[in-house]
């Protein structure tokens, strides 16, 4: 107990407290000025906006992947199952370099897309792609065990009670998976917001256009504007806390709603 608390304090709480104390060196006006500057707001908008959009895409695509992995038996299923973890395991810088090479104007995917007039690398679209890449395992790994637990018999029950396939999915399957889906969404979102390594390679990092908030923090630090950096960090911290809190509530709700048999 004592050990747990001390360890948690040293590893997590003290650094966070330090961050807050540092930002207290700013007057509220200064703090507000930094936050409301155009570049900060744009960076936050890029991080949170694209992060949320990527999480939503991951929610949909992740659900489809989970469905295939759990409900179908096909050759190479175990291999695909393992591949899902690649974004977890890959160093993010490696992922960034790989994605950039792939989507650059001469890359395997970049070239055909460029022919269609779509530019991915060094645009916000690139950030979006990188965020999808790193977020997908969160949705898959959160929903997978819940779907495995879901008895296929409940679909048969719904069908024999007269439900159409659509009604079965919307009224029976999705509500059963909802807590897990929401948790997966929140985790993928949190990861996308905090992602740095894989994004900065492909982003192009144009201020106000494709500059993410974590990068802006690094830039401020390299300019020795520590107060600016901590102010942005504090805001990201607060938003992340809100997300973690929401995830926690969702999990509590899920457990109370659907206790294990």
């Amino acid at each position, binding site marked *: 107990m004592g050990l747990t608390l001390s360890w948690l304090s040293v590893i997590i709480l003290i650094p966070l407290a330090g961050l807050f104390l540092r930002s207290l060196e700013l007057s509220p006006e200064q703090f507000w000025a930094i936050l409301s500057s155009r570049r900060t707001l744009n960076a936050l908008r890029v991080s949170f906006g694209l992060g949320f959009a990527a999480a939503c895409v991951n929610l949909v695509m992740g659900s489809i992947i989970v469905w295939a992995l759990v409900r179908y038996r096909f050759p190479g299923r175990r291999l695909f199952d393992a591949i899902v973890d690649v974004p977890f395991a890959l160093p993010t810088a490696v992922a960034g370099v790989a994605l950039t090479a792939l989507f650059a104007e001469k890359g395997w995917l970049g070239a055909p897309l460029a022919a269609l007039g779509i530019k991915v690398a060094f645009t916000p679209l690139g950030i979006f792609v990188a965020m999808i890449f790193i977020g997908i395992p969160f949705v898959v790994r959160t929903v997978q065990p819940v779907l495995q637990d879901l008895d296929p018999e*409940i679909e048969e*029950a719904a069908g024999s*009670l*007269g439900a159409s396939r659509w009604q079965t999915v919307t009224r029976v399957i999705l509500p*059963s998976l909802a807590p897990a889906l929401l948790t997966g969404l929140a985790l993928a979102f949190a990861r996308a917001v905090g992602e740095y390594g894989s994004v900065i390679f492909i982003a192009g990092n144009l201020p106000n256009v494709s500059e993410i908030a974590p990068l802006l923090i690094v830039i401020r630090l390299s300019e020795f504007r520590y107060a600016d950096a901590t102010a942005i960090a504090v805001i990201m911290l607060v938003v992340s806390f809100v997300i973690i809190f929401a995830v926690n509530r969702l999990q509590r709700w899920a457990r109370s709603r659907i*206790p294990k048999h």
Partner: protein
Amino acid sequence: MTIEVKNLVKKFGIFAALDGVDLKVDNGELVALLGPSGSGKTTLLRIIAGLDWPDSGEVSFNGEDALAQGARERHVGFVFQHYALFRHMTVFENVAFGLRVQPRAVRKDEAAIRARVKELLDLVQLDWLADRYPSQLSGGQRQRIALARALAIEPRILLLDEPFGALDAKVRKELRRWLRSLHHEINVTSIFVTHDQEEALEVANRVVVMDKGRIEQVGSPEDVYESPASAFVHGFIGESIELPVQVESGVIRLGDRPLALAADGLAPGASRLFVRRHDMLVGPSGSGAFEGAVRQVRNFGPVQRAEVALLGGETIEIDAPRDKELRAGDIVSLNPRRYRIFAG
């Protein structure tokens, strides 16, 4: 609603789950499909429900082809062994589900749905649980809710797959009686699957005994118990003594000992003789078909169970009345009051 099944075949790989099954169920009957696991009884039930499809054969309801319809159109109530309740819905919403998913044109209004659900919960005597979630109920309660849910759509047929299989012995017995009286009340044509002979004999009007994808016998509980049609049925239903015998020129032999039993009309060759335990009458040595030495006597329940080593090599267990004096070491004769011999 009558159900007719003709020459149904269903294979899983090389395993024939159903190997040419014919069955007719009359309107209002309560039929048990009884057999060991792997006998095809659940497969037959699922095909009737539309949850599985046969490789060949026919299924018709009241003469109309049921295989042309999916599970959704068949209007069949199905109760699963593990209940398959929707765990994110309250008991009330579970029962209401079948009413809420009806096409808009025929769907009842909210008040009518509420009234119907209330009526069904009263029927299964669980109206006080309406706001609970399935995980908060006991197994017996869940199964009754599953039944209420299946009945909500006013099914033409009610199918139950091992409905009491996951429950403990005491709850099982209660629910058996309850199911029988419920069937009496609502009188919908019903088929239930079970591997428990006592359940089948106690609940059903008619019992269908299955083995290895085939129907061995169809009859009233009395029929299948008193006059089993095959060696399998005799061995499966009720406790039986089974002895390998040899039939030759009008004589039945156990080992090399001829038995003083009539062999009229029996085909020669290796056969099996079946006797119910309580049909073996114990007499003084030299007075019956079998001779043997009592090895062990155990007294419990209404009878005493004796282990007897027969001359000819087999050891059997018989049930004798409690007032019969039997001790280990006694040499006795045994005479079957009733017996059956099946070739093979």
